């Protein structure tokens, strides 16, 4: 094992396809033992970045270190990769197929067969060991693909869209397996669309748009960073008359309102003001922390490109 605390270090990589800059001077690191999420709209450069980390394609400039060094053939044996566009041989029995994929990762045939059988039991496909992929349902074959990704007990697991197309039961199963891998000290990098899964699972995140880093850091940091000086309240009263309230936005359902505060006013000031005034009845009071989904839409969804450029500075600190 290497002493470097990071499983992946990316320094200023760029990749150009013709006139299109797919990845633009991107830097980030993935710490050992964490679940790291990569987000971004379609075509933002996530898959290109993953492919560069995996040495499938080379960056035009910049450097990448994986598991404490340059990417070599030996590195491949310590990485498990589940691509977004994935598949399996259709006409081959599961154990045979997984054993073959395991041996290609450097395992002995006996070890690969044993582990294939054990993992198939774990994902609930113990009865299908002799089945062919063509006989499996979509969800089942997705689980087989996941097994193929981790059969050789890799230290770094990179998954492109792990939950796409999975039903809730299998999503939970996969999630628990990912947590188990994390508990074993494995590093997991996921490219993912489901924001609530990122909020729930990821330790840190990276969001890319137009090949550039627009959000980066721990999930909590990012949310706080995007938190505006505002509170969400529900109740009755003339909210705009409170001192320090710049403007009032009511939500679509009309149940609560967001009070945007000026820079001299804190949420505590508002709470005190509400408590002492008989003109207000408050049922709920909360800090306005945006969900990742809101942040995603704000950053990616066309608030004008000037916003995107400011964010990295704020994020890197």
């Amino acid at each position, binding site marked *: 094992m290497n002493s470097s605390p990071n499983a992946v270090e990316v320094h200023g990589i760029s990749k150009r*396809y013709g006139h299109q800059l797919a990845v633009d001077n991107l830097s980030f690191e993935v710490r050992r033992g964490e679940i790291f999420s990569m987000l971004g709209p379609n075509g933002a450069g996530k898959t290109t970045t993953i492919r560069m980390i995996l040495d499938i394609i080379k960056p035009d400039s910049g450097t990448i270190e994986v598991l404490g060094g340059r990417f070599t053939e030996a590195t491949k044996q310590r990485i498990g990769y589940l691509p977004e566009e994935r598949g*399996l041989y259709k006409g081959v029995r599961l154990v045979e197929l997984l054993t073959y994929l395991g041996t290609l990762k450097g395992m002995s045939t006996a070890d690969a067969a044993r582990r294939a059988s054990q993992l198939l039991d774990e994902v609930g496909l113990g009865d299908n060991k002799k089945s062919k992929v063509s006989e499996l349902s979509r969800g089942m074959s997705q689980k087989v693909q996941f097994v193929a990704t981790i059969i050789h007990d890799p230290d770094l697991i990179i998954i492109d869209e792990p939950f796409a197309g999975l039903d809730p039961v299998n999503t939970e199963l996969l999630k628990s397996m990912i947590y188990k891998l994390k508990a074993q000290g494995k590093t997991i990098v996921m490219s993912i669309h489901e924001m609530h899964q990122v909020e729930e699972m990821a330790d840190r995140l990276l969001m890319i748009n137009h090949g550039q880093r627009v959000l980066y850091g721990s999930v909590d940091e990012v949310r706080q960073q995007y938190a505006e000086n505002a509170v969400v309240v529900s109740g009755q009263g003339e909210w705009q008359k409170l001192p320090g309230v710049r403007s009032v936005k009511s939500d679509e359902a009309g149940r609560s309102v967001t009070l945007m505060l000026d820079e001299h006013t804190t949420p505590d000031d508002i709470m005190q003001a509400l408590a002492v005034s008989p003109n207000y009845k408050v049922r709920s009071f909360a800090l306005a922390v945006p969900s990742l989904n809101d942040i995603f839409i704000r950053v990616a969804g066309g608030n004008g490109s000037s916003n995107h450029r400011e964010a990295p500075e704020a994020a890197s600190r």
Partner: protein
Amino acid sequence: MNLRKIWLIARREYLFNFRRRSYLFTAFALPLIIVVVMVLVIGLLTETMESTSSFKAVGIVDKAGVLSDSAGVPTVKLPELFRLESSEEQASADLQSHAIDGYYVLPADYLRSGRIDVYNRANLALTEGVNSALTSTIKLALASRVGDPALVERIQDPLKALAVYKVGSSQKLDETSVMSVFIVPTIFGLLVFMSVTVTSQFLMSGMVEEKENRMMELFVTSTRPSEMLWGKLLGLGALGLTQIVVWTLFGVVFASTRGTDIGQTLANLQLTPGFLLMGLAYFILGYLLFGSVMSGIGALVNAEQEGRQLSGILGTVGVIPFMLSFSYLTDPNGTIPRVLSLFPFTAPVGMILRVSWAVVPPGEILISLGIMALSVVGTIWLSARLFRLGMLNYGKRLGLRDVIRAIREGRQAIVSRAQRKEASL
């Protein structure tokens, strides 16, 4: 390169494709069908055309006095099948009574007119075999009139001491090899060509399948593209060799059931160790050449359909020597055969045909093999690049211009117009 991984890939490709129905058919069922058809056809042909065994007796009414003197005594020894009839009435009566199966009438002016009338029963025509027996009998009778025994013998067997030489050689070929000179190289060339195309077809469809099944990224993060390519080439090459061995065994078994001495037959057929070694060299190089080009094609297309069209063109190039085989007959060392035996894609068939019809300077064979070896190095290098390119560009149709640009710029991913549009939104 990691040899164990190449071995694993080769073994997997071999075992997987061996179980394919289309392989089992070409390797086992096809030769069986061919053997059965050959036995039937040969049997039927000899039975109906050459044999005289289905005839009890055939009469001859000799009004011209060619086979008998004026007293009706034969002047030559008649084959057992024939009997002289005193008159047409007699012959007709014998035919009625089934004493004979038919009869020839040589009219009085036969020598001048050459006319012969044949009568047979409606359900049993006199065959070519009977006709040729009559022909040689008449020839013998006419020749004996001259009174020169040497002449008689020459007319009986004009080609008795036929000596056949290959172009450029002073060594006489023996009699059986004269026939085989034409047939065996054609069969051998066809065999080599078929196994080359069939296996490289597997190579291509395997790659298309992996692209369709989205297996490529999984492989590319496990092995090097070159290991993948070599594993596939070797595994499927072994499969092709297996097919040749199976076919050869079928041939040997077939020959031995027909009472032929295999060793003698092989020697007669000019399948000398040197010739077989050369055939093997052309098989291996030809396979690597076609196989690497096919995997390059497989890397670029998305559906097997498209691949088949392109590989069909390649296959057609490979059989050009067969199509131009007349030029081998007239001048095996002329320009056309020489070019065909040097051009790498036609060389396997082209050289095998040429070597069996003429003596080719060993230097030229070596040059031809050398050109092929160099081309193989080139096509493997190229297809390794295409392989890597194609691996990562599935779902996209790669135009020739894209490919050339990608090879020149050393890029591994091609951005389609749709992606470019998406990315620039």
